[in-house]
């Protein structure tokens, strides 16, 4: 869907983006991860030509972006800005309607679509005529997202869309984000410097440093097969948590004992990470949780210590570490 080859951008003497290539498949979510100033935003902005590259090619859906009219190109790509960039002089509804108005949709169609989106994003219609200044940061970011999604573009570029949020709100939005069917069929590039966020939301992660991609791969690949010390160090601090999120219950299924005691009724799907299973313990003596393996329709009931020993078995059988 998106193909970037040997992209270079220099500002004065700073090589902001230094020979970057990657591909994003249709429907896939790629995270551009890296510390501040490593060239994430610059890379993203070259995709919709907010910045013109010095060299390299970009094609979206098989078409070279440099050969398209920039305004038309931008209208066909959803873009969520680092600082949301809502128009302070437009109401919420007007802000969301910017692209439809540029595309000259009729008003009824626009209104219907806005209502639908606000609904999906859990925003009340009361806000319709409010100005962005009257909304909280989280609400503003959702409006920014709605604005990018309104014309249902196949490609969505997001620059630290949840950057300005507190942890609780961010976790909540992450969940909503994953649930949103609107996003499931889109090709998404999301820029973040938050390792957790990248692991949570992306199918693949491109870890960047000083204008280059150091490693690109699935979260598990980065975690368990880091290309070099930079990648290892980058993930080190949150390694355990990332592992518990990345390793799925299906991965350790073979080490889970089947006690057969299926007392309580709630079940954790085996496709979830270990982290989610740990999360659902209430921590009282000899507590069991039920794990449902959707493929085999088998349910296993395990205690906390059984789960932990399965995890340790799994780890010992891994080639690295």
């Amino acid at each position, binding site marked *: 869907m998106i193909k970037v080859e040997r992209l270079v951008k220099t500002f004065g003497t700073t090589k902001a983006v230094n020979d970057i290539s990657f591909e994003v498949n249709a429907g896939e979510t790629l995270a551009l991860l890296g510390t501040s100033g490593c060239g994430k935003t610059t890379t993203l902005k070259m995709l919709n030509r*907010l910045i013109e590259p010095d060299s390299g090619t970009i094609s979206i859906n098989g078409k070279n972006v440099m050969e398209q009219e920039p305004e038309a190109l931008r209208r066909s790509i959803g*873009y969520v*800005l680092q*600082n*949301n960039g809502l128009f302070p002089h437009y109401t919420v509804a007007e802000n969301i309607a*910017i692209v439809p108005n540029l595309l000259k949709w009729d008003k009824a169609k626009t209104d219907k679509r806005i209502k639908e989106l606000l609904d999906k994003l859990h925003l009340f219609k009361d806000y319709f005529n409010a100005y962005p200044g009257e909304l909280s940061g989280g609400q503003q970011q959702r409006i920014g997202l709605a604005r990018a999604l309104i014309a249902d573009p196949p490609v969505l570029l997001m620059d630290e869309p949840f950057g300005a949020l507190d942890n609780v709100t961010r976790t909540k939005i992450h969940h909503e984000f994953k649930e949103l069917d609107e996003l499931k069929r889109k090709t998404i590039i999301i820029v973040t410097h938050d390792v957790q966020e990248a692991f949570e939301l992306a199918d693949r992660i491109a870890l960047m440093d000083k204008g280059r991609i150091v490693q690109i791969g699935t979260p598990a690949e980065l975690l368990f097969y880091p290309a070099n010390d930079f990648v290892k160090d980058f993930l080190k601090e949150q390694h355990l948590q990332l592992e518990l999120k990345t390793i799925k219950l299906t991965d350790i299924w073979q080490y889970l004992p089947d006690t057969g005691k299926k007392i309580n009724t709630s079940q954790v799907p085996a496709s979830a990470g270990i982290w989610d299973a740990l999360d659902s313990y209430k921590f009282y003596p000899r507590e069991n949780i039920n794990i449902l393996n959707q493929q085999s329709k088998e349910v296993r009931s395990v205690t906390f210590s059984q789960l932990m020993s399965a995890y340790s078995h799994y780890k010992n059988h891994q080639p690295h570490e």
Partner: protein
Amino acid sequence: MNEHQQTLWEFMQQQSDKLLVQTMQHIGLTFISLFIAVLIGLPLGIYITRKKQLSGLVLGIAGVLQTIPSIALLGFMIPLLGIGAKPAIVALLLYALLPIIRNTYTGITGVDATVKEAAVAMGMNKWQVLFKVELPLAMPVILAGIRTATVINVGVATLASYIAAGGLGEFIFGGISLNNTNMILAGAIPAALLAVLFDFLLSLVQNLNFKKVKGAVKVAPVVLLVLSCLYFIPSAYGSKLTAGFTPEFMGRQDGNLGLISKYGLKIHTIVINDAVMYKAAQEKELDVISGYSTDGRLKAYDLLVLGDDKKIFPPYYAAPIVREDALRKFPELEQTLNKLSGLINDSVMTELNYRTDYLHQTPERVAKDFLEAKKLYKPDRGGNEGVVRIGSKIFGEQYILASMYTMLIKGYTNYNVATKTGLGGTKIVFDAMTNDQIDVYPEYTGTGLLAILQAAPQTVTRLQVSKDSTYNYVQREFKKRYKIKWLKPIGFNNAYALMMRQAQAKQLGVKTISDLKRYLDSK
């Protein structure tokens, strides 16, 4: 204090027509120039946000323009654009430019870069970014600039009357030259109120929220145009001919007030400085002007004095006045001085003034030529039977007359003459005479009546009817109060007068002020 306010109020009521016209002109001038300044300043301000390297130069030039003193700027405009509305509007708009350009520039530069980027990222082209994002967001700052410009313009527009563009300055500067406080205030107070009012209204617009500003900005051009049009309403009537009067003439009963009340003259009138008035008449920018009936410029510019058939201009007949003791001391003096009586009429005096003022001939030569032509000149007898002291005021006509009297006395009597010419104004010469410093000087009946005797208005109106009644009155009063004798009038009358270009007057068949009124009233 109360009484004072009362009279100001009365003045404003009495002059309410003119006050209204001037106020409309004032608002009109302010907003025409503002409108044009916005038309120029806004695009220019936008342009320099795109070409930042030009911003310093443009803002610098606009800044320099603003430091030019207003009077000087208006002065520069006259050779370029003449008199009237055009130069005034240009001068005003030059002042209004800086705040508008500067605030447009700062306003647009100050728009949040993220918001601008968002607009581009949504797929807006540069015009859409400008009109949908940059201008609306910069609008409060731009409006602040327009507000500043408006207040500046209301102030500077008072000076427009210097170059005959009207406005409340007519009252203010007319009042200053007539030493009439009410008239000054009748112009200054409304001007100040206009400034406060517009400032307030614009501050309201500036503080509207975005939604309403959108609406306000849409109606703004209409409002500006309507306000601008106010300037043209007053000139829309009686505009067949245009009159230019000095501020002093405008405010005098024996001036424009009399023209209106006695003749019912309705003519489009602009107020203009005496110095540019004659030239403007010659260049056909003005058709009727006020002036002095024996001014040399009448001839220089080929102007015709209209007959004052209803006698609103009091006669200012010139005659020598002499101390009675001097008449006793020099028995031959009176008959010698009277040799000139009845010899110089208005056109002759105008001709003589023309020769000194425009051809720059000396008063002595002009006097001698005239006496020789009239076969009155006799060479100096070199007499030594006492010295007659002759005085004169400080303008050409008086010098000429003083020279003639000197020559006559020296040629016809055995007295010698000492001249003390160039004595400032009426008060100085007359004080010199009452203090026995001079024996004789030429005076005008009107001046004697108004400036020296300070006659009451009823008396003035009563006497105004004929030349003789004024002459008889001053003669009697001077004798009684000062023991000074008015000798026989010389013949000419140096009074206020209305003038037109000879050719135009002839073409329109206008000889008197009543003719002029008939012409103006005819369709």
